[in-house]
């Protein structure tokens, strides 16, 4: 992990792409950005003409030394910041960002060579994608697995990138579909179970570092099962996210 200064920065929106029906990928150019480790997040602060402000945290999908910062924001119904970012934001708009934040929920290619298990619930995949991408780019030797719980195939974030990492052998990728599966999928849709987790995740014996990110109930359920399955609680790093 690299120690990087945290501060406020002016960011320019350089590109916008639909990520799913409800989410948008936002690319920012932040000239003063000190780079960020995979798994870090930032705060975005919006200011209305009358001085009213609202801010929310978003995980960063990109990592490394550059000044390009990529986010993937899911619109929270009745939220205040995410609907603005997903529906109203335009290319060339300026945003205030505060970061990089987080020195705990971080993975770095130069960290010790232990297997890594990534477990994502919904848009909680964003910081885990940053780790998987950094791992793929670094040609890092530690074995990476991702277990990704998502509502439907159309709700997957970074689907083609993740498939690419899997095809090149840098990631073992398993999906759990909770609402609707692809055609011909072997199991009916349903929530993640302890059995699915046990079958897809690195076993405790190989001493993996486990990163779990998703809504609070998902994270607590999965973290509880991991402890039951013998994982060292200190090697299970969690990040919960909320709405807005």
């Amino acid at each position, binding site marked *: 992990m690299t120690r990087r200064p945290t501060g406020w920065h002016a960011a320019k929106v350089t590109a916008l792409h639909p990520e799913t029906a409800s989410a948008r990928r936002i690319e920012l150019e932040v000239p003063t950005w000190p780079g960020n480790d995979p798994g870090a997040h930032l705060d975005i602060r919006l200011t209305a003409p009358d001085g009213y402000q609202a801010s929310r*945290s978003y995980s960063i999908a990109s990592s490394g030394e550059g000044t390009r910062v990529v986010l993937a924001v899911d619109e929270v119904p009745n939220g205040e910041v995410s609907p603005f970012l997903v529906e109203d934001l335009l290319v060339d708009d300026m945003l205030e960002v*505060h970061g990089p*934040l987080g020195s*705990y*929920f971080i993975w770095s290619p130069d960290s010790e060579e232990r297997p890594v298990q990534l477990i994502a619930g919904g848009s909680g995949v964003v910081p885990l994608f940053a780790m998987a991408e950094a791992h793929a780019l670094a040609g890092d030797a530690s074995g990476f697995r991702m277990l990704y719980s998502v509502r439907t195939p159309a709700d997957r974030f970074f689907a083609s990138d993740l498939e690419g990492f899997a095809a090149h052998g840098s990631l073992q990728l398993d999906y759990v579909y909770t609402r609707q599966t692809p055609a011909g999928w072997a199991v009916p849709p349903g929530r993640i179970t302890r059995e699915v987790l046990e079958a897809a995740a690195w076993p405790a014996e190989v001493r993996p570092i486990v990163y779990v990110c998703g809504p609070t109930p998902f994270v607590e359920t999965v973290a509880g099962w991991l402890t039951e399955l013998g994982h060292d609680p200190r090697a299970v790093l*969690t*990040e*919960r996210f*909320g709405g807005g």
Partner: protein
Amino acid sequence: MHLDGNAVAGALADAFGRDVTSAEASCGSCGARQAVASASAYVSAMGWVLRCVHCDAVLAVLIETEGHVRMSMAGVSSLDMPVAGGGA
């Protein structure tokens, strides 16, 4: 519904001038040590309340007013964080 200490990283960074999510906080109530990132965070527009992940005691309260961050850490008996350039 709670989040975790990662959610308050921004306000803590404003207060401390650095990221402290990997710092270890000891609970003044039960003594348990935990990374700030793994403490329970109750985040609302009123402020942030960090609670011990083991006993739910209040560790810290953070309120943002116009131009100020006010933080109480009365529930933290010690905060242990690595320093830049420090030994391994």
